[in-house]
């Protein structure tokens, strides 16, 4: 077996050719591994952070939910108040106040006229029956009623001199005419 011995000093010996691609590929593989590891690490950190933020937000939401639940009675109260307010408003608006008509009739009375019966029915209809001395007296009473009650529709149905008369007042509500007691 033949053996080749290089007797030249080390600095003069021929150097092996540098292999460029294996080095480049090794560097690329290493960079690839580092990039993958860093990206994975970053994702893990992001997951931890997101989870922690979510937990913190969730506890904030839970606390808000408790506050809302505790304050929900206010909403119920507001609804109940509105319901009752509406009901009262409707009932009162649609109702008729009667004692002011008696007051207005008192003030409208003139000598020679006497009321014998009075009937107030729903819808604001007031029927008056009474006695009069003359037709003139009852017609003056009609005008007096118009002045004191401020009603537009007052009908006289019958009148007998020195006898009875019948008058109807319509659309009385009793909530607009000023009382003068």
């Amino acid at each position, binding site marked *: 077996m033949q053996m080749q011995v290089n007797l030249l000093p080390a600095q003069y010996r021929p150097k092996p050719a540098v292999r460029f691609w294996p080095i480049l590929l090794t560097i690329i593989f290493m960079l690839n591994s580092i990039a993958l590891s860093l990206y*994975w690490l970053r994702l893990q950190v992001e997951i931890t952070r997101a989870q922690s933020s979510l937990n913190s937000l969730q506890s904030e939401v839970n606390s808000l939910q408790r506050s809302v639940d505790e304050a929900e009675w206010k*909403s119920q109260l507001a609804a109940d108040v509105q*319901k009752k307010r509406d*009901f009262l408003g*409707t009932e009162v608006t649609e109702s008729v106040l009667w004692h002011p008509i008696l007051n207005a009739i008192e003030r409208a009375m003139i000598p020679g006229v006497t009321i014998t019966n009075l009937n107030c029915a*729903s819808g604001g209809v007031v029927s008056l029956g009474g006695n009069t001395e003359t037709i003139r007296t009852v017609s003056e009473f009609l005008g007096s009623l118009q002045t004191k009650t401020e009603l537009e529709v007052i009908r006289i149905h019958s009148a007998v001199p020195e006898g009875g008369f019948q008058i109807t007042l319509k659309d009385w509500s009793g909530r607009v005419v000023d009382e003068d007691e």
Partner: protein
Amino acid sequence: MSKLSTHQKWLLVILAVILINFAVWYFGLSPALEKVKAARKEFSTVEQQKISLQKRLGELNAIDAPVLQQEMDLMNVQVPELGYLREFLVYIEETAAKLGVELGNISIAEPREAGSYLSLDFSLSINGTYAQLYSFLKTFEQNERLLLVHSFNLSGEEKMSSSIQFTIYAEDFDQYTPHKAPGRENPFKDY
């Protein structure tokens, strides 16, 4: 393996690295990305929930509860939760006595629905002078409870008679109104 050339060995290494990359993506990075995406989505949902809760709390805090409660207390006098029918009947009798009005028949109908509440219709016969009957009607109409007179009539001269039809309201007329009675051995005999 030793029979492979250096070139082939490097190709194998490249292939292996590509496979490793794919495996890392498939089993490690992709699920982690999904987790991040899911967490972000949930965060956004919870944040929306927080915003709506904050808005609701703001609305609730803006409600002036003491003022509303005060208004409710006033309205509860007009339309009470309980009917207080026993108390109301006593009130009619006491008012009539105070004004010198002679109380006749009181008819009470069955409670009926009036919106979200109940109403109770009364028909009342009374006798007295004009001034007494006028005062009675006025007292009735000025009652702190919502008492609506639907119709009434007056007739007579000195001694007049009247009948009044009116309605009161409550949330419930069938509540328990206890009264402590002394009792009697013979209910058909008044001692």
